[in-house]
Protein backbone atom coordinates (compact mmCIF):
# COMPACT_ATOMS: atom_id res chain seq x y z
CA UNK A 1 0.00 0.00 0.00
CA UNK A 2 1.22 3.47 -0.84
CA UNK A 3 2.44 5.53 2.05
CA UNK A 4 0.95 8.98 2.12
CA UNK A 5 1.33 11.94 4.32
CA UNK A 6 -2.11 12.52 5.72
CA UNK A 7 -1.63 15.74 7.51
CA UNK A 8 0.96 18.26 8.60
CA UNK A 9 -0.15 21.03 10.85
CA UNK A 10 0.85 24.44 9.64
CA UNK A 11 2.73 26.61 11.99
CA UNK A 12 -0.28 28.73 12.90
CA UNK A 13 1.63 31.92 13.60
CA UNK A 14 -0.90 34.57 12.63
CA UNK A 15 1.54 37.40 11.91
CA UNK A 16 4.14 35.37 10.05
CA UNK A 17 2.63 32.72 7.85
CA UNK A 18 0.10 34.78 5.93
CA UNK A 19 2.80 37.39 5.37
CA UNK A 20 5.54 35.12 4.10
CA UNK A 21 4.52 36.42 0.72
CA UNK A 22 6.56 39.50 1.44
CA UNK A 23 7.30 40.76 -2.04
CA UNK A 24 4.37 42.65 -3.46
CA UNK A 25 3.50 44.58 -6.61
CA UNK A 26 6.33 47.14 -6.29
CA UNK A 27 8.89 44.38 -6.88
CA UNK A 28 7.10 43.15 -10.02
CA UNK A 29 6.77 46.72 -11.30
CA UNK A 30 10.43 47.38 -10.58
CA UNK A 31 11.61 44.21 -12.36
CA UNK A 32 9.57 45.30 -15.38
CA UNK A 33 10.85 48.90 -15.35
CA UNK A 34 14.44 47.73 -14.81
CA UNK A 35 14.22 45.37 -17.80
CA UNK A 36 12.59 48.04 -19.96
CA UNK A 37 15.28 50.60 -19.06
CA UNK A 38 18.03 48.04 -19.64
CA UNK A 39 16.60 47.25 -23.09
CA UNK A 40 16.37 50.87 -24.24
CA UNK A 41 19.80 51.77 -22.82
CA UNK A 42 21.37 48.75 -24.50
CA UNK A 43 19.94 49.48 -27.95
CA UNK A 44 20.59 53.23 -27.66
CA UNK A 45 24.22 52.77 -26.64
CA UNK A 46 24.83 50.04 -29.22
CA UNK A 47 23.39 52.05 -32.12
CA UNK A 48 25.37 55.11 -31.03
CA UNK A 49 28.61 53.14 -30.99
CA UNK A 50 27.81 51.74 -34.44
CA UNK A 51 27.49 55.37 -35.59
CA UNK A 52 23.87 55.05 -36.75
CA UNK A 53 22.25 57.56 -34.41
CA UNK A 54 20.93 59.65 -37.31
CA UNK A 55 19.43 56.63 -39.10
CA UNK A 56 17.76 55.35 -35.92
CA UNK A 57 17.23 58.51 -33.86
CA UNK A 58 14.46 57.21 -31.58
CA UNK A 59 16.55 54.49 -29.99
CA UNK A 60 19.43 56.84 -29.25
CA UNK A 61 17.71 60.17 -28.68
CA UNK A 62 13.99 60.45 -27.97
CA UNK A 63 13.47 57.05 -26.28
CA UNK A 64 16.35 57.84 -23.95
CA UNK A 65 13.92 59.81 -21.79
CA UNK A 66 12.33 56.51 -20.65
CA UNK A 67 15.25 54.85 -18.78
CA UNK A 68 15.92 57.65 -16.25
CA UNK A 69 12.19 57.91 -15.46
CA UNK A 70 11.74 54.12 -15.34
CA UNK A 71 14.80 53.62 -13.13
CA UNK A 72 13.77 56.43 -10.76
CA UNK A 73 10.24 55.07 -10.42
CA UNK A 74 11.65 51.56 -10.03
CA UNK A 75 14.01 52.66 -7.28
CA UNK A 76 11.14 54.40 -5.49
CA UNK A 77 9.10 51.20 -5.74
CA UNK A 78 12.02 49.20 -4.32
CA UNK A 79 12.51 51.48 -1.35
CA UNK A 80 8.74 51.54 -0.80
CA UNK A 81 8.77 47.76 -0.41
CA UNK A 82 11.53 47.77 2.22
CA UNK A 83 10.37 47.47 5.80
CA UNK A 84 13.44 49.26 7.20
CA UNK A 85 13.79 51.96 4.51
CA UNK A 86 15.72 54.46 6.63
CA UNK A 87 18.64 52.04 6.55
CA UNK A 88 18.78 51.83 2.73
CA UNK A 89 22.21 53.49 2.79
CA UNK A 90 23.55 50.28 4.35
CA UNK A 91 23.48 48.82 0.82
CA UNK A 92 26.34 51.13 -0.08
CA UNK A 93 28.61 50.43 2.85
CA UNK A 94 29.57 47.06 1.40
CA UNK A 95 29.69 45.03 -1.79
CA UNK A 96 28.67 41.41 -1.39
CA UNK A 97 29.73 39.42 -4.42
CA UNK A 98 27.40 36.50 -3.60
CA UNK A 99 24.29 38.63 -3.25
CA UNK A 100 22.50 39.51 -6.51
CA UNK A 101 20.70 42.31 -4.71
CA UNK A 102 24.03 43.89 -3.82
CA UNK A 103 25.08 43.72 -7.47
CA UNK A 104 21.77 45.30 -8.46
CA UNK A 105 22.10 48.09 -5.92
CA UNK A 106 25.56 49.06 -7.16
CA UNK A 107 24.68 48.73 -10.85
CA UNK A 108 21.64 50.95 -10.33
CA UNK A 109 23.76 53.49 -8.47
CA UNK A 110 26.00 53.82 -11.55
CA UNK A 111 23.43 53.27 -14.33
CA UNK A 112 20.75 55.69 -13.14
CA UNK A 113 22.95 58.85 -13.21
CA UNK A 114 24.49 57.74 -16.52
CA UNK A 115 21.01 57.36 -18.02
CA UNK A 116 20.20 60.90 -16.85
CA UNK A 117 23.41 62.24 -18.43
CA UNK A 118 22.68 60.39 -21.66
CA UNK A 119 19.20 61.83 -22.09
CA UNK A 120 20.40 65.25 -20.90
CA UNK A 121 22.99 65.39 -23.67
CA UNK A 122 20.13 65.20 -26.20
CA UNK A 123 17.73 67.50 -24.34
CA UNK A 124 18.25 70.65 -26.44
CA UNK A 125 18.39 68.65 -29.68
CA UNK A 126 15.19 66.65 -29.09
CA UNK A 127 13.09 69.23 -27.24
CA UNK A 128 14.00 72.66 -28.72
CA UNK A 129 10.44 73.94 -28.21
CA UNK A 130 10.39 72.95 -24.57
CA UNK A 131 13.73 74.64 -24.01
CA UNK A 132 12.52 77.79 -25.77
CA UNK A 133 9.70 77.93 -23.25
CA UNK A 134 11.61 76.94 -20.11
CA UNK A 135 14.92 78.67 -20.95
CA UNK A 136 16.72 76.69 -18.22
CA UNK A 137 19.99 76.93 -20.10
CA UNK A 138 19.79 80.73 -20.02
CA UNK A 139 18.99 80.77 -16.35
CA UNK A 140 21.60 78.24 -15.22
CA UNK A 141 24.84 78.73 -17.05
CA UNK A 142 26.54 75.63 -15.59
CA UNK A 143 24.11 73.44 -17.57
CA UNK A 144 25.97 74.41 -20.72
CA UNK A 145 29.20 73.12 -19.20
CA UNK A 146 27.48 69.86 -18.21
CA UNK A 147 25.97 69.51 -21.68
CA UNK A 148 29.34 70.11 -23.30
CA UNK A 149 30.89 67.49 -21.04
CA UNK A 150 28.18 64.89 -21.74
CA UNK A 151 28.25 65.45 -25.51
CA UNK A 152 32.03 65.09 -25.49
CA UNK A 153 31.79 61.88 -23.48
CA UNK A 154 28.85 60.27 -25.25
CA UNK A 155 31.02 57.49 -26.59
CA UNK A 156 32.47 56.72 -23.15
CA UNK A 157 28.99 56.70 -21.59
CA UNK A 158 27.78 54.38 -24.35
CA UNK A 159 30.65 51.97 -23.78
CA UNK A 160 29.86 51.92 -20.06
CA UNK A 161 26.12 51.55 -20.61
CA UNK A 162 26.31 48.38 -22.72
CA UNK A 163 27.73 46.07 -20.01
CA UNK A 164 25.77 47.92 -17.30
CA UNK A 165 22.48 47.44 -19.17
CA UNK A 166 23.24 43.77 -19.70
CA UNK A 167 24.06 43.25 -16.01
CA UNK A 168 20.91 45.17 -15.05
CA UNK A 169 18.78 43.00 -17.33
CA UNK A 170 20.27 39.72 -16.18
CA UNK A 171 20.25 40.66 -12.52
CA UNK A 172 16.46 41.15 -12.46
CA UNK A 173 16.23 37.40 -13.15
CA UNK A 174 19.21 36.22 -11.11
CA UNK A 175 17.73 38.10 -8.17
CA UNK A 176 14.95 35.51 -8.14
CA UNK A 177 16.90 32.46 -9.27
CA UNK A 178 19.37 32.79 -6.38
CA UNK A 179 16.67 31.84 -3.86
CA UNK A 180 17.00 28.09 -3.52
CA UNK A 181 14.01 28.03 -1.17
CA UNK A 182 11.58 28.97 -3.95
CA UNK A 183 11.67 26.10 -6.47
CA UNK A 184 9.84 28.06 -9.19
CA UNK A 185 12.58 30.70 -9.21
CA UNK A 186 15.55 28.49 -8.54
CA UNK A 187 16.64 27.74 -12.11
CA UNK A 188 19.56 29.17 -14.04
CA UNK A 189 17.50 30.16 -17.07
CA UNK A 190 15.67 32.96 -15.29
CA UNK A 191 18.59 35.38 -15.75
CA UNK A 192 18.76 35.11 -19.55
CA UNK A 193 14.96 34.93 -19.77
CA UNK A 194 14.48 38.20 -17.89
CA UNK A 195 17.26 39.82 -19.95
CA UNK A 196 15.68 38.80 -23.25
CA UNK A 197 12.23 39.84 -22.04
CA UNK A 198 13.65 43.21 -20.93
CA UNK A 199 15.38 43.76 -24.27
CA UNK A 200 12.15 42.81 -26.04
CA UNK A 201 10.06 45.33 -24.07
CA UNK A 202 12.77 47.93 -24.72
CA UNK A 203 12.61 47.28 -28.47
CA UNK A 204 8.80 47.47 -28.31
CA UNK A 205 8.97 50.84 -26.53
CA UNK A 206 11.32 52.15 -29.25
CA UNK A 207 8.83 50.96 -31.92
CA UNK A 208 6.05 52.84 -30.11
CA UNK A 209 7.97 56.12 -30.09
CA UNK A 210 9.58 55.78 -33.50
CA UNK A 211 8.45 57.96 -36.40
CA UNK A 212 10.47 56.53 -39.26
CA UNK A 213 9.58 53.42 -41.17
CA UNK A 214 13.15 52.14 -41.32
CA UNK A 215 13.51 52.26 -37.55
CA UNK A 216 10.15 50.58 -36.91
CA UNK A 217 11.18 47.92 -39.36
CA UNK A 218 14.57 47.28 -37.77
CA UNK A 219 13.17 47.06 -34.24
CA UNK A 220 10.29 44.93 -35.46
CA UNK A 221 12.89 42.49 -36.75
CA UNK A 222 14.92 42.67 -33.51
CA UNK A 223 11.78 42.22 -31.43
CA UNK A 224 10.68 39.22 -33.48
CA UNK A 225 14.08 37.60 -32.94
CA UNK A 226 13.92 38.28 -29.22
CA UNK A 227 10.38 36.87 -29.01
CA UNK A 228 11.54 33.63 -30.64
CA UNK A 229 14.48 33.37 -28.22
CA UNK A 230 12.15 34.11 -25.29
CA UNK A 231 9.72 31.39 -26.37
CA UNK A 232 12.63 28.97 -26.60
CA UNK A 233 13.85 29.95 -23.13
CA UNK A 234 10.35 29.52 -21.67
CA UNK A 235 10.18 26.05 -23.25
CA UNK A 236 13.53 25.25 -21.65
CA UNK A 237 12.34 26.57 -18.30
CA UNK A 238 9.28 24.30 -18.38
CA UNK A 239 11.44 21.36 -19.50
CA UNK A 240 13.78 22.09 -16.61
CA UNK A 241 10.94 21.91 -14.09
CA UNK A 242 9.60 18.83 -15.80
CA UNK A 243 12.83 16.90 -15.30
CA UNK A 244 13.44 18.43 -11.90
CA UNK A 245 12.87 17.33 -8.33
CA UNK A 246 9.48 16.91 -6.65
CA UNK A 247 9.37 20.51 -5.43
CA UNK A 248 10.06 21.74 -8.95
CA UNK A 249 7.37 19.49 -10.37
CA UNK A 250 4.94 20.98 -7.86
CA UNK A 251 6.11 24.49 -8.78
CA UNK A 252 5.57 23.75 -12.46
CA UNK A 253 1.97 22.75 -11.73
CA UNK A 254 1.23 26.37 -10.79
CA UNK A 255 2.15 27.47 -14.30
CA UNK A 256 1.08 24.47 -16.33
CA UNK A 257 -2.01 23.23 -14.57
CA UNK A 258 -2.90 25.58 -11.76
CA UNK A 259 -3.87 29.03 -10.60
CA UNK A 260 -1.45 30.82 -12.91
CA UNK A 261 -2.02 28.83 -16.11
CA UNK A 262 -4.37 31.33 -17.71
CA UNK A 263 -2.17 34.26 -16.75
CA UNK A 264 1.01 32.55 -17.89
CA UNK A 265 0.01 30.74 -21.07
CA UNK A 266 -2.90 32.99 -21.98
CA UNK A 267 -1.59 36.45 -21.26
CA UNK A 268 2.20 36.05 -21.23
CA UNK A 269 2.87 33.38 -23.83
CA UNK A 270 -0.07 33.77 -26.24
CA UNK A 271 -1.02 37.47 -25.99
CA UNK A 272 2.41 38.73 -25.01
CA UNK A 273 4.65 36.64 -27.28
CA UNK A 274 3.00 34.47 -29.93
CA UNK A 275 0.39 36.94 -31.23
CA UNK A 276 2.72 39.99 -31.33
CA UNK A 277 5.42 37.80 -32.87
CA UNK A 278 2.97 36.69 -35.56
CA UNK A 279 1.84 40.28 -36.21
CA UNK A 280 5.44 41.46 -36.47
CA UNK A 281 6.17 38.64 -38.89
CA UNK A 282 3.20 39.68 -41.05
CA UNK A 283 4.46 43.26 -40.99
CA UNK A 284 7.92 42.17 -42.10
CA UNK A 285 6.39 40.15 -44.92
CA UNK A 286 4.81 43.35 -46.21
CA UNK A 287 1.28 43.16 -44.82
CA UNK A 288 -0.16 46.34 -43.37
CA UNK A 289 -0.16 45.90 -39.61
CA UNK A 290 -0.27 48.81 -37.16
CA UNK A 291 2.97 48.08 -35.29
CA UNK A 292 1.56 49.80 -32.21
CA UNK A 293 -0.52 46.71 -31.50
CA UNK A 294 2.29 44.10 -31.21
CA UNK A 295 4.51 46.63 -29.39
CA UNK A 296 1.85 47.30 -26.76
CA UNK A 297 1.14 43.58 -26.40
CA UNK A 298 4.83 42.84 -25.83
CA UNK A 299 5.11 45.52 -23.15
CA UNK A 300 1.93 44.38 -21.42
CA UNK A 301 3.05 40.74 -21.63
CA UNK A 302 6.39 41.66 -20.05
CA UNK A 303 4.64 43.36 -17.16
CA UNK A 304 2.27 40.44 -16.57
CA UNK A 305 5.20 38.00 -16.78
CA UNK A 306 6.89 39.76 -13.84
CA UNK A 307 3.70 39.69 -11.80
CA UNK A 308 3.15 35.99 -12.49
CA UNK A 309 6.72 35.07 -11.56
CA UNK A 310 6.71 37.15 -8.36
CA UNK A 311 3.30 35.94 -7.17
CA UNK A 312 3.65 32.29 -8.16
CA UNK A 313 7.24 31.97 -7.00
CA UNK A 314 6.37 32.92 -3.46
CA UNK A 315 3.79 30.17 -3.25
CA UNK A 316 6.39 27.47 -3.91
CA UNK A 317 8.47 26.09 -1.08
CA UNK A 318 10.13 23.01 0.40
CA UNK A 319 8.23 22.37 3.64
CA UNK A 320 4.55 22.45 4.67
Amino acid sequence: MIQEELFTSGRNIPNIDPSLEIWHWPIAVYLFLGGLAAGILFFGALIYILGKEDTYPTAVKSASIIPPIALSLGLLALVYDLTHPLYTWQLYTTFRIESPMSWGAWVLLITTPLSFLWTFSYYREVYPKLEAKLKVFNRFNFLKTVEKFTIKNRKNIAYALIPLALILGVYTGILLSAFNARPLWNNAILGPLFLVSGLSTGAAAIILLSKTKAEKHLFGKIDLGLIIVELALITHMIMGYFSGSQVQLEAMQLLVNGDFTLMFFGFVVLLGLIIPGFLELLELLGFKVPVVVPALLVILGGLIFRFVMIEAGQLTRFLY
Partner: protein
Amino acid sequence: MRYAMVIDTLKCVGCSDCVVACQTENDVPIGYCRDWITETVDGTYPNILLELKSERCNHCANAPCVRCCPTGASHIVEGGIVLVTAEECIGCGACIESCPYDARYQHPDGYVDKCTFCHHRLQKGQLPACVSVCPTKCMYFGDLDNPNSEVSLLLKNRKHKTLAPEAGTDPHVFYLI
Protein backbone atom coordinates in the same frame (compact mmCIF):
# COMPACT_ATOMS: atom_id res chain seq x y z
CA MET B 1 33.31 24.97 17.76
CA ARG B 2 30.12 24.08 15.90
CA TYR B 3 26.88 24.49 17.79
CA ALA B 4 24.01 22.15 16.98
CA MET B 5 20.62 21.32 18.42
CA VAL B 6 19.29 17.80 18.64
CA ILE B 7 15.58 17.24 19.23
CA ASP B 8 14.12 13.85 20.12
CA THR B 9 10.83 13.55 18.22
CA LEU B 10 10.01 10.42 20.22
CA LYS B 11 10.01 12.38 23.45
CA CYS B 12 8.43 15.63 22.28
CA VAL B 13 4.78 16.02 23.31
CA GLY B 14 4.20 19.31 21.48
CA CYS B 15 3.47 21.33 24.62
CA SER B 16 4.83 24.57 23.10
CA ASP B 17 6.79 25.41 26.23
CA CYS B 18 9.85 26.09 24.03
CA VAL B 19 7.81 28.58 22.01
CA VAL B 20 6.66 30.50 25.06
CA ALA B 21 10.11 30.42 26.66
CA CYS B 22 11.63 31.89 23.49
CA GLN B 23 9.00 34.59 23.23
CA THR B 24 9.59 35.57 26.85
CA GLU B 25 13.38 35.41 26.75
CA ASN B 26 13.78 37.27 23.48
CA ASP B 27 10.90 39.71 23.87
CA VAL B 28 9.28 38.47 20.65
CA PRO B 29 6.26 40.66 19.78
CA ILE B 30 2.81 39.14 20.19
CA GLY B 31 1.68 37.15 17.14
CA TYR B 32 5.24 36.32 16.09
CA CYS B 33 7.64 33.61 17.14
CA ARG B 34 11.12 32.36 16.43
CA ASP B 35 10.29 28.69 17.01
CA TRP B 36 7.13 26.69 16.53
CA ILE B 37 5.67 23.18 16.78
CA THR B 38 4.59 21.07 13.83
CA GLU B 39 2.55 17.92 13.99
CA THR B 40 2.84 15.43 11.14
CA VAL B 41 0.71 12.37 10.63
CA ASP B 42 2.27 9.92 8.22
CA GLY B 43 1.06 6.67 6.71
CA THR B 44 -2.25 5.06 5.84
CA TYR B 45 -4.81 4.07 8.47
CA PRO B 46 -4.44 1.99 10.62
CA ASN B 47 -0.65 2.14 10.26
CA ILE B 48 -0.08 5.78 11.02
CA LEU B 49 2.76 7.56 12.71
CA LEU B 50 2.45 10.83 14.59
CA GLU B 51 5.51 13.04 14.79
CA LEU B 52 5.74 16.17 16.90
CA LYS B 53 8.67 18.47 16.64
CA SER B 54 9.90 21.91 17.58
CA GLU B 55 11.30 23.83 14.61
CA ARG B 56 13.40 26.97 14.28
CA CYS B 57 16.27 28.46 12.29
CA ASN B 58 18.62 25.61 11.33
CA HIS B 59 21.78 27.72 11.53
CA CYS B 60 22.87 26.21 8.23
CA ALA B 61 26.53 25.87 7.36
CA ASN B 62 25.68 26.78 3.76
CA ALA B 63 23.23 29.51 4.71
CA PRO B 64 21.31 30.91 1.70
CA CYS B 65 20.11 33.84 3.82
CA VAL B 66 23.68 34.97 4.46
CA ARG B 67 24.53 34.55 0.80
CA CYS B 68 21.59 36.64 -0.39
CA CYS B 69 21.89 39.46 2.13
CA PRO B 70 22.92 42.61 0.24
CA THR B 71 24.20 44.55 3.26
CA GLY B 72 25.92 41.87 5.32
CA ALA B 73 23.34 42.21 8.12
CA SER B 74 22.91 38.44 8.08
CA HIS B 75 26.19 36.91 9.10
CA ILE B 76 27.69 33.84 10.74
CA VAL B 77 29.51 34.17 14.05
CA GLU B 78 31.77 31.78 15.91
CA GLY B 79 30.08 28.45 16.53
CA GLY B 80 28.23 28.65 13.20
CA ILE B 81 25.37 30.74 14.56
CA VAL B 82 23.53 32.82 11.95
CA LEU B 83 22.69 36.26 13.30
CA VAL B 84 21.06 39.45 11.96
CA THR B 85 22.36 42.90 12.86
CA ALA B 86 19.18 45.00 13.09
CA GLU B 87 21.01 48.28 12.34
CA GLU B 88 22.37 46.90 9.08
CA CYS B 89 19.12 45.26 7.92
CA ILE B 90 17.10 47.21 5.33
CA GLY B 91 14.14 44.82 5.40
CA CYS B 92 14.43 43.86 1.73
CA GLY B 93 13.17 40.33 2.41
CA ALA B 94 15.81 38.50 0.34
CA CYS B 95 16.71 36.26 3.29
CA ILE B 96 13.05 35.42 3.94
CA GLU B 97 12.64 34.39 0.31
CA SER B 98 15.81 32.31 0.45
CA CYS B 99 15.07 30.32 3.63
CA PRO B 100 13.68 26.83 2.94
CA TYR B 101 12.54 26.60 6.57
CA ASP B 102 10.61 29.89 6.58
CA ALA B 103 12.43 30.61 9.83
CA ARG B 104 12.66 34.37 9.40
CA TYR B 105 10.06 37.08 9.74
CA GLN B 106 9.84 40.83 9.45
CA HIS B 107 9.78 42.33 12.93
CA PRO B 108 7.16 45.09 13.34
CA ASP B 109 10.09 47.51 13.80
CA GLY B 110 11.16 46.77 10.21
CA TYR B 111 14.21 44.57 10.46
CA VAL B 112 14.29 40.81 9.98
CA ASP B 113 14.38 38.63 13.07
CA LYS B 114 14.85 34.94 13.83
CA CYS B 115 16.24 32.38 16.28
CA THR B 116 19.74 33.20 17.55
CA PHE B 117 20.32 29.93 19.46
CA CYS B 118 20.03 32.45 22.38
CA HIS B 119 23.49 33.78 21.59
CA HIS B 120 23.34 36.15 24.58
CA ARG B 121 22.70 33.22 26.93
CA LEU B 122 25.46 31.08 25.40
CA GLN B 123 27.96 33.84 26.12
CA LYS B 124 27.03 33.54 29.79
CA GLY B 125 27.45 29.78 29.68
CA GLN B 126 23.70 29.12 29.72
CA LEU B 127 21.66 26.91 27.38
CA PRO B 128 19.16 28.37 24.87
CA ALA B 129 15.88 29.26 26.59
CA CYS B 130 13.88 26.61 24.70
CA VAL B 131 16.29 23.82 25.66
CA SER B 132 16.42 24.85 29.30
CA VAL B 133 12.64 24.77 29.83
CA CYS B 134 11.69 21.63 27.89
CA PRO B 135 9.66 19.55 30.38
CA THR B 136 10.31 16.23 28.62
CA LYS B 137 14.00 17.07 28.15
CA CYS B 138 13.74 16.21 24.48
CA MET B 139 16.06 19.00 23.36
CA TYR B 140 19.83 18.86 23.50
CA PHE B 141 22.35 21.55 22.66
CA GLY B 142 26.10 21.42 22.30
CA ASP B 143 29.27 21.40 20.25
CA LEU B 144 29.44 19.02 17.27
CA ASP B 145 33.20 19.48 16.97
CA ASN B 146 33.64 17.83 20.36
CA PRO B 147 33.20 14.07 19.70
CA ASN B 148 32.27 13.46 23.34
CA SER B 149 29.59 16.13 23.64
CA GLU B 150 26.02 15.03 24.32
CA VAL B 151 24.87 16.03 20.84
CA SER B 152 27.76 14.23 19.10
CA LEU B 153 27.08 11.03 21.03
CA LEU B 154 23.33 11.20 20.34
CA LEU B 155 23.91 11.63 16.62
CA LYS B 156 26.42 8.80 16.67
CA ASN B 157 24.10 6.36 18.40
CA ARG B 158 20.61 7.29 17.23
CA LYS B 159 18.84 7.41 13.90
CA HIS B 160 18.29 11.02 12.92
CA LYS B 161 17.23 13.35 10.11
CA THR B 162 17.37 16.99 9.15
CA LEU B 163 14.67 19.06 7.49
CA ALA B 164 14.74 19.57 3.72
CA PRO B 165 18.30 18.27 3.24
CA GLU B 166 17.62 18.45 -0.50
CA ALA B 167 17.77 22.23 -0.24
CA GLY B 168 21.51 21.80 0.19
CA THR B 169 21.85 24.08 3.19
CA ASP B 170 23.66 21.73 5.60
CA PRO B 171 21.27 22.41 8.51
CA HIS B 172 22.40 22.06 12.13
CA VAL B 173 19.16 21.24 13.88
CA PHE B 174 18.84 17.44 13.99
CA TYR B 175 15.77 15.33 14.76
CA LEU B 176 16.09 11.92 16.41
CA ILE B 177 13.59 9.49 14.90
